[in-house]
């Protein structure tokens, strides 16, 4: 095989949206790049995610990474193909009652402090903005510049950009082992590269066992086409609390308008390795969505599926070199935000690899925080 004898500057393992973005960034930096994908490119978590491009403020670092990434997406929008279905629908963070509206105000202050356009809607304004919601909700925080896209096509576009710039794509090749400057592919092949990025999604821990990734399963269900039914991505404000409550399985209200007129209904969280759609979780999730949008009950659901978010203990991704093997870089652990943060991850990683100035502080994302022996005290 031609590719295996050659030496590359950069080998990216995994062609989900994160790997595709890294490969594109690599070729843009002039690196001879190979992408090695074990199964179907874009067929992992990237095929299952909602594709909400969203600013999230779970922590300072998360806010910095999502905001930076959203800016990068906005720069790309004019170039994306129509099939990537980008729509700037904005996010409505729903406050169910007065106490939550207070939370919304605090969130607004925090986002506005970072220069994020956002506004508080009162009950009446909320009903005007999104008439399908049930009456009686206290209000919402609207973040108008959030958007949605179709992740598999966005990922495909990213890796095609890399390919057009000379990157080699090697699909159907499962990486079994990584060394300092080489990777081993099932079947005995060995690929040499100056640097290696592990972007293997929830399977990343198989290659870098020090990073404690756990698959956090999510359910989604999509409806037939109902153009005009929903205008914004609508999420309950308690989403983060519910999402990370740490209980056995949690469901929260999260609705997304697709460019096709379909409504994508989310979502659930539970630690699990089992792909099966669980009737119990699915029906709880749908009941919750219906409690916010009563007319949703009459829409027809076409298909349900599950996906795995790669979760880390501190809910931040690993973006940086391994402390014990500096030529190996992790781009792992993006949990429920990897579509959004793929672009920012790629830039942040390349900056570290090339010794350039980091666009946002890289400290909180260092894999070293999970390498107990080698990480300096207090770093975790």
């Amino acid at each position, binding site marked *: 095989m031609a590719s295996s004898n050659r030496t590359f500057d950069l080998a990216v393992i995994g062609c989900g949206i994160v790997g595709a973005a890294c490969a594109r960034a690599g070729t843009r930096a002039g690196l001879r790049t190979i992408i090695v994908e074990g199964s179907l490119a874009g067929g992992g978590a990237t095929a299952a995610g909602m594709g909400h491009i969203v600013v999230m403020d779970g922590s300072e670092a998360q806010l910095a990474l999502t905001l930076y990434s959203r800016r990068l997406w906005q720069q790309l929008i004019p170039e994306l193909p129509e099939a990537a279905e980008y729509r700037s629908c904005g996010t409505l963070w729903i406050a169910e009652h007065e106490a939550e509206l207070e939370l919304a105000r605090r969130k607004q202050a925090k986002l506005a402090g970072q220069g994020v356009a956002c506004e508080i809607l009162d009950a009446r304004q909320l009903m005007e903005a999104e008439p399908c919601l049930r009456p009686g909700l206290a209000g919402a925080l609207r973040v108008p510049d959030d958007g949605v896209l179709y992740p598999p096509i966005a990922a495909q576009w990213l890796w095609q950009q890399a390919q057009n710039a000379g990157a080699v794509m090697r699909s159907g090749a499962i990486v079994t082992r990584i060394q300092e400057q080489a990777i081993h592919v099932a079947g005995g092949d060995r690929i040499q590269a100056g640097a290696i990025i592990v972007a293997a999604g929830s399977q990343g821990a198989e290659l870098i066992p020090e990073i404690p990734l756990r698959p956090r399963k999510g359910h989604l269900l999509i409806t*037939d*086409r*109902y153009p005009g039914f929903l205008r914004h991505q609508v999420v309950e404000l308690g989403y983060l609390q519910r999402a990370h409550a740490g209980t056995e399985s949690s469901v929260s209200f999260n609705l997304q308008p697709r460019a*096709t007129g379909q409504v994508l209904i989310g979502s659930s969280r539970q630690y699990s390795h089992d792909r099966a759609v669980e009737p119990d979780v699915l029906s709880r999730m749908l009941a919750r969505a219906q409690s916010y949008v009563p007319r949703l009950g*009459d829409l*027809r659901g076409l298909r349900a599926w599950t996906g795995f978010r790669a979760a880390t203990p501190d809910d931040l991704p690993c973006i940086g070199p391994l402390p014990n093997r500096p030529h190996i870089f992790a781009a792992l652990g993006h949990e429920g935000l990897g579509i959004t943060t793929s672009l920012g991850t790629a830039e942040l990683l390349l900056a570290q690899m090339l010794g350039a100035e980091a666009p946002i502080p890289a400290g909180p994302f260092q894999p070293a925080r999970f390498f107990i022996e080698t990480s300096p005290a207090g770093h975790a």
Partner: protein
Amino acid sequence: MPETFTVFINGQPVTAGPETSVAALLLRERMVNRRSCAGQLRAAFCGMGICMECRVTIDSDAHGLGCMTFCRPNMKITTL
């Protein structure tokens, strides 16, 4: 149910019976029920609830299955 009654297709009264499915009625009237997502005209195809081509607005249901739904008095069918 009476032997024949009136249903409305796009507001126009049409006579139908309880033994007639919505899809059969539309074919009888040579009315296309929907446009495909790329804009092509489509009418019932499989006749047995599989292909979903006969989807049409029946009363308030935007994607009623025309071939599996029988006419009822005053039913409102909205096509395209």
